[in-house]
């Protein structure tokens, strides 16, 4: 039986990897993908924790509140999808206006010199 710590370490690794991706990538699309990775890291963590609190092998009694972790995973997936949709829409309008989605050369709103 794989101890839960392994799952947690994997989710932390995924989270940090996603974070690194967000910080370093220049292309907006890649940032979106890294954010999705971070979301999935959270999913993994939820799955692991719920497994700890409610052992599916020998269920003595269960109530709705035992499956909160897993229910939340589905919701997160739904939300992630919605985010991706709005994200792509915004990237489209940025592309139409700037001709590219390299975030490093989109900074028209910087603080003008006073």
């Amino acid at each position: 039986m794989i101890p839960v710590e392994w799952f947690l370490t994997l989710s932390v690794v995924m989270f940090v990897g996603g974070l690194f991706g967000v910080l370093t990538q220049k292309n907006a699309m890649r940032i979106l993908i890294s954010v999705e990775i971070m979301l999935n890291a959270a999913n993994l963590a939820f799955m692991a924790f719920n497994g700890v609190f409610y052992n599916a092998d020998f269920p003595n009694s269960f109530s709705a509140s035992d499956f909160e972790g897993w229910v939340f995973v589905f919701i997160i997936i739904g939300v992630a999808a919605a985010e991706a949709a709005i994200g792509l829409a915004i990237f489209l309008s940025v592309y139409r206006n700037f001709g590219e989605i390299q975030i490093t050369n989109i900074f028209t709103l910087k603080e003008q010199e006073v």
Partner: protein
Amino acid sequence: MVVEEGIQVIEDKFLINSAILVILIPFLTGIFLLFLRGLEIRNKTKFSERLTGSIGVAGLLGSLINATIIIFTYFNKYDAKTQRVIGDTPFVSSAHGTFKWGISLDPLSVIMMFLLAFIASVIHFYATEYMHGDTAYTRFFGTLNFFTGAMFGFVLASNLFMAFVFWELLGVSSYMLIGYYWPKASAASAAKKAFLYNKIGDVSFLVGIAYIWQITLKAHHPTLDYHELTNLISNGTISINQLWFPGLLLFGGAIGKSAQLPLFGWLPEAMEGPTPVSALLHSSTMVKAGLFLLSRIYFTFVTVGGHYEAFIPEGDAALTATLITWLGVLTALCGALIALTATDIKKVLAFSTISQLGYIGMAMGTGQIHVGFYHLVSHATFKSLLFLCAGAVIHSVHSQEMKDMGGLKKYMPYTYWTMLIGLLGLVGFPFITNGFYSKDALLVAIKNSDIPLAGLAFTIALITAGITAFYSSKLFILTFLGTPRYDKDHVHPHKTGIRMRIALIILAIAVVIESVWWAVGSIGGLASEKINKSFWNFEYRLGDLIGIHGAPFALIDTIPSILAVILGISLAFGMYFYQIPFLISLKEGGFIIKLENIIANRFGFDKLIYVLAMGPGMWVGSKFRRFDEEVIDGFIINTVIKDGSLKLADYSNKLDQDGIDGVVNGLGDITSELGYNLRKVQTGQTSQYARWMMFGLALLLSIMTLLYFQTFTIK
């Protein structure tokens, strides 16, 4: 009737009301005249001098009549020695101690009031003609009436608070009157100087009052009334050892007002005012206020023994009395010496006033209050007479300098004779003048008083008597006798006007009456005991009233002063009338010239006062002003607050211009980033924002782990 040990306080509605009238009438007429002056200015007209003049004089006559009523009823109805008529109403009443408006009729205040009323009405009458043709005629009489009202108020006051109120009103009215010709720059600055010198005196007067209040408060009977204070002393609740210091402070006030030694610089310059003002204020009444105050608060520096002999307390309580006496003597000497060198007739009289005031102060200091008061009365009469004659002379010669007068005897006979009577009084010509008796009483008082170095004081007083004789006769010769020195074509002296002449005659008669009265009293007193104890002997009668007696009048005491006076007169006549070469060479001698210009600039007191008070005041003011503008205003306000927020933002801007300009790549050095300009961070780079956020995350995480051990408790 409240019976207190020694002094009985009587409520007499009639007397108090008439006393109030004495004070109020001049005030009302004064204010009414000033109101008329306002109308004059508004519609550019000028009321007839007859109308305004008569209103002014009427005001004074009103109070003179009341004064005579009071003096007669008081001395007949009550035994002046033990009974006082006092009436007062609360002015500022707080629970534990009230400051009162109060009138006290006792021998001192009644005699002074009557004297003041008499002299003031004569001078007002004189002024109606002297000021003829002056544009601000009404304003002159308005302020003069206002002043006399204030003087009455001061004289009749029953407590130190009311005295202080009218004391400052005197200061202000003298400021108004000296500055009468205000377009003249010298008059305006003279007025300012007079007021400031008086103000210095007022401040020490105020502190004296505060001290007395504190002492009486500690004795659970807070009061400022003269008679209550005397009672407190007599029944021992407060002792003289506590009171001598406030007494000294009150004397400080008197120095300022009565032009004693250090603060007499303002009196000669006060001659800028018209001559009636000099006559009324700066010779007979206002300058006497300080000395009258001394006679009112004699209990602070003198204790009255069993049978009326006054003696100076031992220890440091004697300091006040010695200071008053010695300051008086020195003022007398300085006044006389400076009068020697003065060429302007009014300046001579002014300095002679200073020296006579010195005499009176000296007498008061020795404790012989009645002797001081005695000379005060006589000096008031003949000195006002002298000033009026001087006014007449100036009026006819149109100049105040003695060098362009001379030989006026035949043009102005009346003034000649009245001036002669006045000068004899001033000189104290033996046996026939009031000055002689009062001055000798002074000299006797100083001779056998127990003031340290009394002998030396006596000799100085003698020398001053001689010098007074010298400069009075010099004045007399230079103005009336000898060859006329004015240029004939456009100065033709004329007889003094009718009203001025009448005024002079009245005053001269007053001097003569006093002389005769006192001569009979003193000489007759020697012969029969009855005359000596009766009202004829004025000095003894005064002592009886006030409750202090000194040595009786003795002929042998007068010999030294007679010699001094005769010496002075003969020297003056020799030098100026008969021009004896030896004496003239003496006059021109180098030492005398050097002495003269030392004396001329008033022993440098004026410069001393200027250096002490005015100079540093201005210097400190400029230092404070610069400090205020640059340091407090500059530093605290402009750098920290007003521009503070801007300054801080500008500072960060400056950091931005010459700070790291490049895009932050990667987390980089945390410390340099911290210094990075807050505003510059808005570079618009999304990725850089994300990095900043993660820096925030790292920061918070480190703080929490740091705090992990202390605050994070799971209950």
